[in-house]
């Protein structure tokens, strides 16, 4: 596989949207090519950053105003919209180069960051709410405090991993990135399901499990 082929597929690779054969080809190429790994790492950082943005609960009026300004098209949360925008590129068949893709993703992150900053001015933080329709009472399994504690722990572990990652060899780095993608994809799907049905016990249980998996993964790699 050549670099241009790999870079065309790398966003789909991050999405987990490749067939097994293509996935293995990309992984083999990434193992040998520092330039393509750098492209992949850039994309991953954007995806990870956007997914780690804190989730907010504006009042109804504020939410309506923000939503109409920022996203008049889709009803999902900022967090989810940003993640889905990246993850659905394959199905939409965008004809974009990697730099364009990175620039677009970066722009989305900036929009999301500005939105979060605006939301922060309006009221208290509610880490469990992923959309405008859910009330805290509807998420009985996932208490605010639990989710906040998990996210705090995840952020701590992620910082440790980020510091240590510089010393890792390519095999370890590859294993971490790949598994982190799997966990983040699962978390994104859980968020999506909860956006659609905030009171669904199964989705809440699975999201709790996905958070725990992320903590387990980070804790394991933070020891290297």
């Amino acid at each position, binding site marked *: 596989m050549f670099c241009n082929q790999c870079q065309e597929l790398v966003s789909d690779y991050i999405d*987990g949207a490749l067939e097994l054969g293509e996935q293995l080809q990309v992984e083999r190429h990434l193992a040998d090519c520092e330039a393509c790994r750098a492209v992949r790492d850039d994309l991953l950082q954007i995806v990870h950053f956007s997914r780690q943005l804190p989730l907010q609960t504006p009042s109804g009026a504020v939410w309506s105003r923000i939503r109409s300004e920022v996203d008049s098209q889709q009803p999902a949360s900022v967090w989810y919209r940003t993640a889905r925008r990246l993850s659905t590129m394959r199905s939409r068949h965008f004809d974009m180069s990697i730099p364009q893709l990175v620039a677009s993703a970066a722009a989305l992150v900036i929009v999301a960051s500005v939105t979060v900053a605006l939301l922060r001015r309006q009221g208290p933080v509610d880490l469990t709410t992923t959309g405008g329709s859910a009330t805290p009472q509807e998420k009985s399994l996932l208490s605010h405090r639990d989710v906040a504690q998990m996210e705090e722990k995840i952020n701590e572990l992620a910082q440790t991993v980020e510091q240590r990652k510089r010393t*890792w060899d390519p095999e370890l780095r590859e*294993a971490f990135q790949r*598994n982190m993608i799997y*966990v983040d994809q*699962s978390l994104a799907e859980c968020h999506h399901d909860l956006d659609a049905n905030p009171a669904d016990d199964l989705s809440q*249980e699975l999201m709790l499990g*996905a958070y725990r*998996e992320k903590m387990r993964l980070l804790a394991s790699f933070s020891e290297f």
Partner: protein
Amino acid sequence: MSLLSVVLLMLGAVGYACTDRFERIYTPQGAAHLTIKNMNGDIRVNAWDRKTINVRAITLPPAKVEDRVSGNEFTISVKRHLPPGAASFEVSVPANTSITLSNVMGKIEVNGVAGDVAVDSIDGEIRLQGIRAASVDVKVTAGNIFFEGDLLDGGSCSLQAVKGDIDVTLPAATPFDLNARSLSGAINIGDFINNLMGGSKLRKNVSGTHLRGGARLSLTTFSGRVLLHKK
């Protein structure tokens, strides 16, 4: 560069390519608990009809294996280094030994064990065969999980993967309480579906009681299939 430096460099290069061996034989007094903490490499545990625990590991430096014994508790650990090196374990245990395995990268296989089994892994297939334990708890981030064995009345078997299939084979006459969940994959419990009472039979969640119930069987994958077969 002096001649001595050249010789040391050559010896160092040769040493790095060589593998080391770790071998121990433990003689527990009664049921034992064996813990193996690995980083990179396969682990295979087989039950045998002797009363000793044999541990053999082949390591690729800088991986270094250490052991600790406290009564019937045996702990084997690979010291964490960068680069991680590798260590592959081949272990034989009395069938009633409880096993706790943790690994980051590598396959794990456990055969014929009747003591409790706990596996915590990140990347690699998990294969449990001929298991008849009161408690089985497996977590893996990326890797398929295969379980073949039986469930004890009142026991629990929890298998969880983030990305991977969960493939379980049980005797047709085994009673259990099932909770199978897959976020984005199929759940197929084969003929067991005919005798599954109560619970739910949804796309992402199949639960219910098989025969009189008793053992708790929890199967969860976020991206993969849940498959349940009759032996």
